[in-house]
């Protein structure tokens, strides 16, 4: 592939070509490889969590706007196959082109990206009109995932929709940055834990399967009562004792596994702390690394703007809620904890 040269900078390859005398000598320190936008990998973020209108779509579409405003090129992928509605958050009509074209007519993904009215921000609708989600073959799905990475964007943000179906969980696991949304209510926290455990189990299952140990994890989980395993942490603790190799694979799978928690629809000050509590439980009970990225308060005007087909962030730039969304976006960018 031809590398693009950025003014004032020269790639090592170019430097070596123009200076044959340098031969195999190590690259001089001051010459860095030119940053090539096309080879720079697209980062994927995904939001998931419980069901029941906790604001996953609102959060991801708002965070997308924040990133786009900062000058990042964003593609928002609506992978809520049953209930794609991200276009509504931008007040645009539902785009006609969807992933169906990609699967059935081999149309390239990049040409299916629609405008949202926000500069730097494109929308890709995942709704599969004729194809039931269950019928996408594994190979097709892997192809989609590969193509997502090649989209001309700095970040692809995915709304995976609700639920813990393996299709949903797989789209979530595709991401580099995992965002878990919750509202300060018992049911929502319960759903979130259930979701996180499913994600974790699937991640573990994949790592184990890749090493030919699928049956080990199945058998262990099936026998969990006899083995005294009550949760995912005890499952991994047990698997680790089985062999050094297994232990290494688990460590590897967990090493870059990090959840960013966002608490939405906060109505009282005390509810801000729910994020800290949930984070702590994830770490101490489930053995999962988690960070509290921030909270967003409940604002009546959110649904009112959506009903008026106005993007909330644009019509309420200075509101507290908008400020909190910006903090969340910034913390996610920096992989930082809130507070």
């Amino acid at each position, binding site marked *: 592939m031809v590398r693009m040269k950025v003014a004032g900078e020269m790639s090592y390859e170019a430097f070596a070509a123009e200076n044959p005398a340098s031969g195999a000598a190590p690259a001089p320190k001051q010459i860095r490889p030119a940053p090539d936008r096309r080879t720079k990998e697209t980062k994927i973020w995904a939001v998931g969590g419980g069901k029941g209108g906790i604001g996953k779509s609102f959060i991801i579409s708002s965070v997308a706007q924040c990133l786009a405003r900062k000058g990042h090129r964003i593609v928002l992928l609506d992978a809520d196959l049953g209930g794609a509605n991200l276009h509504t958050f931008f007040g645009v009509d539902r785009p006609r082109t969807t992933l169906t074209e990609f699967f059935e007519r081999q149309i390239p993904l990049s040409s299916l990206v629609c405008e949202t009215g926000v500069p730097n921000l494109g929308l890709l609708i995942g709704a599969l009109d004729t194809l039931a989600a269950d019928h996408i073959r594994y190979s097709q799905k892997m192809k989609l995932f590969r193509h997502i990475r090649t989209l001309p964007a700095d970040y692809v943000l995915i709304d995976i929709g609700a639920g813990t179906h393996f299709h949903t969980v797989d789209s979530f696991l595709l991401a580099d940055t995992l965002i878990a949304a919750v509202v300060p209510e018992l049911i929502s926290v319960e759903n979130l834990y259930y979701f996180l455990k499913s994600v974790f189990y699937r991640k573990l299952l994949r790592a184990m399967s890749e090493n030919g140990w699928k049956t080990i994890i199945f058998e262990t989980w099936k026998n969990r009562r006899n083995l005294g395993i009550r949760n995912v942490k005890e499952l991994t603790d047990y698997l680790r004792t089985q062999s050094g190799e297994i232990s290494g694979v688990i460590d590897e799978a967990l090493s870059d596994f990090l959840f960013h928690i966002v608490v939405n629809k906060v109505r009282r*000050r005390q509810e801000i702390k729910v994020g800290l509590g949930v984070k702590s439980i994830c770490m101490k009970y489930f053995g999962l690394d988690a960070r509290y990225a921030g909270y967003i308060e409940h604002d009546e005007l959110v649904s009112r703007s959506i009903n008026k087909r106005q993007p909330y962030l644009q019509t309420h730039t200075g509101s507290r809620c908008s400020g909190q969304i910006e903090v969340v976006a910034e913390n996610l960018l920096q992989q930082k904890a809130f507070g």
Partner: protein
Amino acid sequence: MTPPAGKPAEIIEALQVLELPAEATLTQIRQSYRFLKDLYGGESIATLPVSGEISTKDRQQIIEKIDAAYEALIRFFEDERGRDLSVQRSAPDEIARYLADVEEITGAVLKTVRKMQGFVPEEVAAETRIPVLNLERIEQEDFAAFPPPVYTRGFVSGYADFLGLEADRASSDFMRRFNAWKENRGGGNPPHRFRLAFWKKKK
């Protein structure tokens, strides 16, 4: 993770138990400790959904780890600062018992809670950016020396929030007392003494 210079590995580990970064301050350590003790010592929407998955014994172990980490960190900071930081430290449930009998959040209540949590005014000031002088005025209810009401309200609510008290209630309780005092002395204007100093400073 490599420990940053100046902090031994067991201190970094203790900070991890309290879910804090390596550069955490003493104030953050205390806040996190109080928070985690409350979280694992009681039930809330964060713990209820998993209560069936964890035995009482495991839970007790987590609490013991938190306590041990906190003790180690306090000792570390004591050595570093060369003063006893733990004298006035009370357990969270002791503070809760004290608060249960409190009907109105006064300056004296704020002071007591601060002392029970083992903070000196300078630590509160560093965290909340409320000047020490104003913290002391609030604790002593030195109404005559107060800044204009909007500032006082903000200071009281910031202070209460820092202590983990209901900020709205604290500021409304406090402002009620402030207003009562103002009525008694028969004038609605902010205290002259402070005003002068305030405007002078601004210029």
